[in-house]
């Protein structure tokens, strides 16, 4: 018998259609993955199952949990059901917990709220047990801890503990790992799978990471614009995709680009023994302020025309290194030379060098002043030139840059909010290109993008390499992306470079234990061409 049956669910918020005839089911012990582009209604489907929809929502259709229709239930009955029969794990571990309550209390609350006869001590004992199950043993993570005392992955486990404390029949997990680094992500996914398998719990998991989907789901649901475009058993769906959108999605995830050959090695950027310390607040009154070494003795050379990758988990110092190379912050030790000139002389950044450098950031939304038009935005680097182009010359430069990244010259008069995320990232690249820099730094430039958009940007990059002989440093935590757009790669951990070498070599035969762990943890899409072929 099925656990959750959603039939013909349609949903609109203030008259705006969000979901349209969504029908699917989840069996006990089954893992069902929901995937699809951003805004396709995945989260809304999950919230509908919890009956926690935002105000002003109207629904039609049925959501059956066993024999009960959730859409018909009273609020009291729903409260009783939530947490007891259905547990839910939300996307953002940093904010999903109440910051001012200890984790023990938050877990115990689920237990006590549904059965007030349970004593506080007993509830805490059970909370401890649950936390143990999700890998937070009492010896190291006592109940009295507060959320801020835990890492993101650990917090996410607490959220899971809250959701599974009463062993619900169904667990809904809405993108439970997007905010986590690959190694932690692997642990969480493992945990969820175990829970489903061991307890016979139904798991409805929402994710946009197709590798994860393919890896662990029994069944896959693909959504687009509020509709289910395709669903089926994982293996059969993967090998026999019907809907073009599904195909496009999977293709884009696996997208690889062909880079032109790199020219003969001539050093362009030389980073020698660089260290960057952050001052920490003093611990004691007269004690020395603590130092945190975010970049620790890093050295490498980047040759002209070379495409270098930099990978490593979140917080390992990648962005700090970027800022040092850009000359935005001084380094404490070592030297950074571009074309033989230091990027930072004395206390001032060297404008001569700055001019040869540009950068593209991760956030396609935050990278632009919302109050300026595109022409003004992309010409900002002209400020570095002694004689910035004026009038017609300037217009030509803008047209050229925009055309190069696949936009139209007339986009120049628009504001940034009139563009999609992918288009914004193109504009960011146009801004980087406009003064023809010797070196471009990409700091997580594609991490925030949809898979399909990401594929386009990567293509653009490869294309530009052909036309402009780009030299770049590409920073990402996404190994598959780095693999396709770089010649050489550096692996960074806790501020140090632990491994360096040709990209293909490093990925196929990692030497350092950390690199191995990183590569092992990264979920990979099964090579479908092989299976079908």
């Amino acid at each position: 018998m099925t656990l959750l049956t959603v039939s013909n669910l349609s949903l609109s918020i203030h008259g705006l259609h969000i979901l349209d005839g969504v029908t699917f089911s989840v069996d006990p012990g089954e893992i069902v993955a929901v995937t699809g582009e951003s805004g396709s209604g995945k989260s809304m489907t999950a919230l509908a199952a919890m009956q926690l929809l935002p105000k002003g929502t109207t629904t039609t259709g049925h959501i059956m949990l066993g024999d009960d229709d959730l859409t018909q239930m009273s609020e009291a009955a729903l409260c009783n059901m939530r947490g007891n029969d259905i547990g839910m794990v939300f996307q953002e571990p940093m904010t999903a917990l109440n910051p001012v309550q200890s984790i023990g209390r938050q877990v115990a609350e689920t237990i006590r709220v549904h059965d007030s006869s349970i004593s506080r001590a007993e509830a805490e004992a059970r909370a401890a047990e649950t936390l143990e199950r999700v890998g937070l043993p009492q010896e190291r993570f006592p109940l009295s801890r507060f959320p801020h005392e835990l890492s993101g992955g650990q917090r996410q486990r607490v959220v899971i503990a809250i959701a599974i404390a009463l062993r619900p029949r169904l667990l809904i997990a809405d993108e439970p790992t997007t905010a986590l680094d690959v190694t932690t992500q692997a642990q969480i996914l493992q945990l969820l799978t175990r829970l489903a398998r061991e307890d016979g719990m139904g798991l409805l998991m929402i994710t946009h990471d197709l590798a994860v989907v393919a890896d662990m789901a029994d069944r896959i649901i693909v959504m687009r614009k509020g509709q289910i475009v395709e669903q089926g058993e994982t293996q059969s769906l993967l090998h026999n995709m019907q809907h073009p959108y599904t195909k496009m999605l999977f293709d884009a995830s696996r997208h690889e680009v062909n880079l032109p050959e790199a020219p003969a090695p001539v050093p362009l950027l030389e980073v020698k023994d660089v260290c960057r310390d952050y001052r920490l607040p003093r611990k004691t009154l007269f004690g020395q302020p603590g130092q945190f070494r975010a970049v620790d003795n890093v050295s490498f050379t980047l040759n002209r025309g070379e495409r270098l990758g930099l990978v490593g988990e979140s917080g390992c110092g990648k962005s700090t290194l970027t800022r040092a190379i850009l000359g935005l912050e001084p380094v404490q030790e070592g030297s950074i030379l571009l074309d033989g000139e230091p990027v930072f002389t004395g206390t001032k950044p060297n404008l001569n060098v700055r001019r040869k450098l540009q950068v593209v950031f991760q956030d396609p939304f935050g990278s632009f002043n919302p109050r300026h038009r595109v022409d003004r935005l992309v010409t900002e680097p002209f400020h570095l030139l002694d004689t910035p182009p004026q009038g017609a010359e300037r217009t030509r430069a803008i047209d050229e840059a925009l055309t190069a990244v696949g936009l139209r010259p007339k986009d120049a008069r628009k504001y940034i909010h009139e563009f999609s995320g992918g288009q914004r990232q193109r504009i960011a690249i146009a801004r980087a290109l406009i003064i023809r820099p010797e070196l471009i730094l990409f700091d997580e430039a594609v991490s925030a993008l949809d898979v399909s958009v990401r594929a386009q940007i990567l293509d653009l990059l490869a294309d530009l390499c052909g036309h402009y002989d780009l030299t770049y440093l590409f920073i990402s935590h996404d190994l598959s992306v780095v693999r396709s757009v770089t010649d050489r790669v550096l692996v960074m951990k806790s501020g140090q470079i632990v491994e360096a070498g040709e990209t293909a070599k490093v990925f196929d035969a990692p030497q350092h234990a950390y690199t191995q762990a990183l590569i092992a943890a990264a979920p990979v899409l099964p090579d479908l061409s092989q299976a079908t072929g």
Partner: protein
Amino acid sequence: MLRYTAKRFLSLLISLAVASLVIFVVIEVAPGDPASFMLGMNAQPETLAALRTELGLDQSRLDRYLAWVGGMLTGDFGTSYTYRTPVTEMIGDRLWVSVPLAIYALALSIIVAFPAGIYAASRRGGAGDIGVMGATQLGVAVPNFWFAMILVLIFSINLRWFSAGGFVGWDKGLWAGLHALTLPAIALALPQAAILARVMRSSLLDVLGEDFMRTARAKGLTARQALWRHGLRNALIPVLTIIGLQFSFLLAGSIIIEQVFYLPGLGRLVFQSISARDLIVVESVVMLLVFSVIVVNFLVDLAYAAVDPRLRART
């Protein structure tokens, strides 16, 4: 914590030092001489000179500044020019009116504002919300001295429920004291309550939109339970800031209200002293007020830590 406290203490000392200098300079350049004020129109020159010597006004400004600051460091604020009593004693007396009044007003505004803010937030967009918010807009717009006038007109002159002002003294009993402070406290509390209710509401609304509130609901808590158990404490942090600011304001800002109700509080003392050019009293009271603001802010910071464990760790 130690370092934090020490740092705060240092900035407190610097603030006080700067404040003392500013106050002294500003007050000293004010035209008007305490001695001639005391002696009035028909004062004889030699009488005046004698009085000036007696008050120490013939000393140089620097000497007087140093004497004043030196005295303060030993807890001696000097002697009032006009009243000839130790300033410390006078301030002490006045504090017995001003501090209870401030606390009373604050308590009133909290009692009104918290439920109103919570009610409005939980009925967001509804008639109740609009009603409460409209009332708070009005509350903020009403000048408190005008409100005080109206209160006196209605409750003292027409209904005669409360005395029109003055303070009976705490020796008449707690009840009598509170009764005397009721109208001034209401007048003071009105705008404060309105502001507080608004802050409470918007802070609660912010919290209600937080992810952890959804987590709480997913656990099976009702909307009300989630609000009380998870919403309030988090919403309290910005509210505390405002309360801290308000307390300082109430202590110092009640000058006009104390004037309307002729309460013998700090505000009136300062007002009288300014017009009597009782410089030493003005200087000392202003110093005290500055000090109290800094101390209250410090206490508010500590209160944050009590509410928010994240801050406990940092300090």
